[in-house]
Structure formats: structure tokens, C-alpha cells
């Protein structure tokens, strides 16, 4: 789970990682108070989870109350439905660095990355000028040792006072990484200001979804979901993403669902939603279809090939769902796996025309979607 910048910076503050003076506002009415707290010049930063905010005009630098009001109004009226803005004191920048902690799946270690060339896309830098990134593997049994942080920081060649601040900052970043089961802690840019003080210009914090049970603080609320259907699916533990295409997917297994998504695109079709009701959810056909029906789509495509998720149980669930929910759109089924012969009989007895081949089912769903469109 990815946190908003303001959430990441709140955590940074708790770990004594310096951040600029700021205030979060959710309405233009709070702007005068924010200006009083922050003072000019300041930066208005849209709180959205996608990257490249600067290039997309989602960050504004302002010097006067008039400018600030104009930009705040523009951003709250933005088509992205921005809910909150971080009003932040501008920093006089001497250096822009990069610092992050993530993991190395091959070595089985955490990984510290630091660069003097901050403020840019680190992935691009890694490809074009890899020598500009300092990498340090962290054995998680011992953690980031001070000598490692020193070794990395001294390579930057900054002033003595700045170097010491960076050493402390890296050690705190690692503490945070461990305490919050992070996938990524990133500060980009990490500013050094005109008084040689290090300040986190931005903050990115991603918490491992599998660790949510021990990281309750970050449990997402209703406001964190884009649609009602996505929220409802999350409450059921059903993986779900809403798109804006024609075919609603109700599949089992992440890999198979992703493959069906590909096959639909090869056929020139489009996907209305991604939904997985396999694994522990295979008895939830009724709920799964109810969620699917909340999304505008022209046809629902059901593809499974389960082992524990028995085909006959899933087929019964689908028949029950159709009887209960009376879907207003065609349903295409392709249910295979454990007890697949019984599943075919169940579906046929309910008046459905079960298919047995994934590609054939995808073609049929695409054809039906086009026919409905005409």
C-alpha cells in the first residue's frame, strides 16, 4: 500500500527526519491559516498517489496570497478530484540528493540507494548513469550498521556537517523501514538548503500489503478507494480493480485472470473490471457477481481452472448467483479443474452453455460485447 506524501512526511517527523513546515488543507477556506503557518514563498502540492506531479502541473510555486488562492482553486477543481493539498514552505536549495531503502529479492537483503543526482527519475538514472548511484546491501539480521551509513555518506563528498546529518538520516530511514514493514522508503529529492541543513523534499512510503495485520495504523478507509465497488470488494477480501471497458471479469487465480485480460485485448476487446474469486473466495460467487454487476459492462466472463477451488462448487455458486441477482447482461462461463465434468452438468442443467476452452470463451465474450454495443 502506497501512502500519500503528507502521510509519509508525518511518519518522517516521528522519526526525526527533517521535513519542511507545512499544513494539509482539504478546502480553500483553510488557506489563510495555512499561509500564516507556512509563510511565503511556498509550494502547493496535490496529494495524489501517481508520480510525475511536477510535469503534470499538480505542483505550484507561489509568492503571494493571490497566486496561492488562484492555484488552490485550480487544483481543487482539477479533473483528478484532488481531495487535499499540502501547503509547504519553499526550501532554498543548494543540493538535491536521492535516498531510498528497498529490497533485493535475489540476494535476500534490504538495499540502500543514495545519489548526489536527486530530483530525477531514479530508474532512468539507473539505466543511463548507474555509476551515479551508491548501493549498499543491508543484511537484515544485523540491520544497517553505522559504519555502512558512514561509508555511503562520505562518498558524497559534502560538508562535514551535512555528511553527519545524512548518516543519522539514513539510520533513521532504516529504522522506519523495519518498524513499518516497508517495501520502499524514498526521499527524492532530499534537499540540502543554503544553511547546509538536510530536508526531505518529498516522501514516498509503501507498506507491504501482506503485513497489514501488524500495521493497523495504515489500514485503508472507505475514502481511500476510487469506487464503491472497489471498497466493497476490499471488505470481502476479493481482489478487484475497476476499468472502463466492456467485459466484466470474474476469474480465479491471479495469473489466469491476467492472461484472460491479455487475451481480451488481443481480440480487440476491453475490460470493465478485474475480479478474482479463486483461492479462499471460491465459495463467494454470489458476492463476486453482485460486485461485477455494480460496474457498467456489456458481458460477464467467468474463467477458472481451480484445484482447491472446486469447479462444481463454483458452478453451483454461479447458478445460485444468476437466480438471485437476475443479471441484465449475458454471462459466458469456462469453468475447469477439480470436478469439472460435474460443473459442466450443473451449468447445462441451469440452461447455460458452458465452454471449456479459454480462448473460445474470450472470443465469445468479445463478440457479445460488440453485438450489445450495436
Amino acid at each position, binding site marked *: 500500500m502506497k501512502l500519500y506524501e503528507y502521510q509519509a512526511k508525518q511518519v518522517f517527523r516521528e522519526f526525526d527526519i527533517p521535513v519542511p513546515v507545512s499544513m494539509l488543507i482539504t478546502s480553500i477556506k483553510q488557506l489563510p491559516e495555512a499561509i500564516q503557518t507556512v509563510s511565503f514563498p511556498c509550494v502547493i502540492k496535490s496529494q495524489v498517489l501517481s508520480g510525475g506531479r511536477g510535469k503534470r502541473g499538480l505542483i505550484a510555486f507561489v509568492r503571494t496570497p493571490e497566486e496561492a488562492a488562484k492555484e488552490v482553486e485550480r487544483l481543487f477543481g482539477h479533473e483528478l478530484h484532488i481531495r487535499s493539498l499540502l501547503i509547504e514552505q519553499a526550501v532554498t536549495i543548494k543540493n538535491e540528493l536521492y535516498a531510498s531503502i528497498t529490497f533485493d529479492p*535475489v540476494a*535476500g537483503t534490504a538495499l540502500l540507494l543514495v545519489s548526489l543526482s536527486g530530483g530525477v527519475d531514479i530508474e532512468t538514472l539507473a539505466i543511463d548513469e548507474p555509476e551515479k548511484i551508491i548501493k549498499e546491501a543491508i543484511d537484515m*539480521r544485523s540491520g544497517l550498521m553505522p559504519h555502512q551509513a558512514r561509508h555511503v555518506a562520505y562518498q558524497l563528498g559534502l560538508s562535514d556537517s551535512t555528511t553527519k546529518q545524512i548518516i543519522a538520516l539514513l539510520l533513521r530511514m532504516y529504522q522506519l523501514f523495519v518498524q513499518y514493514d516497508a517495501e520502499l522508503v524514498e526521499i527524492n529529492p532530499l534537499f540540502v538548503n543554503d544553511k547546509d541543513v538536510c530536508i526531505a523534499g518529498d516522501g514516498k512510503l509503501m507498506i507491504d500489503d501482506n503485513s497489514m495485520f501488524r500495521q493497523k495504523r495504515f489500514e485503508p478507509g472507505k475514502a481511500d478507494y476510487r469506487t464503491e465497488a472497489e471498497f466493497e470488494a476490499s471488505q470481502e477480501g476479493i481482489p478487484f480493480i475497476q476499468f472502463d471497458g466492456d467485459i466484466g471479469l470474474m476469474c480465479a487465480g*491471479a495469473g489466469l485472470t*491476467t492472461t484472460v*485480460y*491479455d487475451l481480451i485485448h*488481443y481480440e480487440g476487446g476491453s475490460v470493465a473490471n478485474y475480479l478474482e474469486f479463486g483461492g479462499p473466495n471460491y465459495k463467494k460467487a454470489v458476492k463476486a457477481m453482485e460486485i461485477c454487476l455494480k460496474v457498467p459492462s456489456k458481458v460477464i466472463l467467468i474463467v477458472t481452472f481451480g484445484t482447491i477451488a472446486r469447479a462444481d462448487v463454483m458452478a453451483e455458486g454461479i447458478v445460485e448467483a444468476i437466480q438471485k441477482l437476475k443479471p441484465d447482461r449475458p454471462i459466458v462461463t469456462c469453468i475447469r479443474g477439480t470436478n469439472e465434468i460435474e460443473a459442466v452438468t450443473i451449468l447445462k442443467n441451469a440452461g447455460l452453455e458452458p465452454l471449456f476452452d479459454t480462448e473460445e470463451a474470450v472470443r465469445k465474450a468479445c463478440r457479445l460485447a460488440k453485438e450489445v454495443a450495436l
Partner: protein
Amino acid sequence: MSIFIDQNTSVCVQGITGSEGSFWTKHMMDLGTRVVCGVTPGKEGQTVHGVPVYHSIRNALKNHDIDATMLFVPPKLTKDAVFEALDAHIKKIVTIADGIPLHDMIAIRQRALSEDAFVVGGNTSGVISPKLAMMGSFPHWIERVYKKGNIGVMTRSGSLTNEVTAMIVEAGYGVSSLIGVGGDPVPGARFAEFLPLFQMDPQTDAVVIIGELGGTMEEEVAESIQNGVFNKPLVAFLGGRTAPKGQKMGHAGAIITGGKGSVEHKIEALTRVGALVAQRPRQVGILLTELGVRKS
């Protein structure tokens, strides 16, 4: 012959008394797997399908030799159970748990590497050599999916594996051994680490990998071919070609960040070293035939 497991491998089942553990232990034994003991703390003295249960692996070792251990243990408890097996110097461990915390998997991966052990999983169906033995949960009784043959398979997926192996069988082939490394961002063991075993296995004439977007496991396979570690024919099927960038869709490990891990990059790496990449599951069988792989 097979890799990783055969009918002579002595297998322990951790979590054998649970409903899943008990259910799949029965299926593992039905296929021919030599399950010698089980472990569930607090249940020593019981038996499950005739298999004696112990409080701990150390207790089980007093009466049994254990070559490999199969975990039916919830994700939160997996690190402890894997470490118990590693502490007992067991070198083959399979964990199917879906939802193991990332930091736990980093610790597991590091120990497995430093102790030369294979930890297969999590978030996988496990390992199977059709007609011989399995550790995990596969519908081995469906002949059109798990027919014995000469194709080695490695996969990051579950249901998709059934879909692809069915296509391998449809084309007139069968499976020698199948290793599910799982769909997590940090799997305990990686594709490339099994290639030397498939290379040595006389039963395996070719290998199919079922990969997907995200990570670098497919690129590592290409590297092994480049280095001559593996030189049998190889066909890959990669899911997620049209997946939206930056969106976590499906497995946690399947995400493109900043251009890294894209399916295009993987296809380029694999085709450069002579592997063939199927666009659809059905093409996997067709490409094996194109490569001249003998039909069983």
C-alpha cells in the same frame, strides 16, 4: 527420474493436522509420495492417514530421516516453521502460504541462500513429478492436466499453470517435473536455480516457464542459457503483456515500476538467447513441436 522429489524422498508435513494439511497429505500419498511424519505443536502421538505426528521437527528426527518438508502453515507463522526446518538442516522446503510478510520472506531467502537450501514458495501450488510424488496441492488426478511426460515446467502461478499444462498435454506432451516458485515479490527460490537440475535430468527434454510481468526471474533464465548452464529447448509463456503500468494486478510480484520488469524486456532477453515465447497458452505446445521436441 525427476527433479527435487521422487517416490524415495522422505517427506515431513508441517501443519499436517489442519484441514488443508490432512486433505493434501492424503493426495500426496495417493500419488506415491513417501510421507514419513508430520508436525503440529501440541498434537504429538496422533496419526493422520497413518502418519505419526510430533510436536516438533526435532522430535520427529529421533524416529525418522527427513529429506524434505512440506508446510501447510498460515502466512504469519511461516517464517518460524521454515526456520525450524532450516535449523534441522533440511534442504528442501515447500511453503504454499499466500500472504507471507515481505520482510519475513527476505529473511527466509537470505537463510536459504547461505545454507544452500531450496525454499520453494510461498504463494504457490508446490512441486509435482506426475505419477511419482508431489509436495503441494495439484489436481494430479486430472489426466488432461497432469500427464507424465518429458517437459519440465517452472511457474509463478497456480490456475494459469493448470491452463498451460493442459495445453502441453493437448499438444501430445506430458510433464516430467513441475516447480511452482510462486507469485510473491521475494520467492524463496528462483527459476534459474532449478535449471541445472532440469539440465541433468534425463527425463526432461525441454523446459516451459510460465512467467509474468514484474521482477527479473525470466531475465535470469536468459542469463543461464547465455552462460551455457542450460542448453535444452525452452519455451516461455508470459502473462501481463497488456497490463496497465504501475497497477498492481494479480500477484504482488507482478508490477512494472519505471519500465523495469516489463514483458517486452523479458521477451527480448529470452529470444536473444534462442528461447521461444508463446503469446497464448495454446501456443506453448505448438512451439515445443516447432523446436522438434520428441512427443511422449
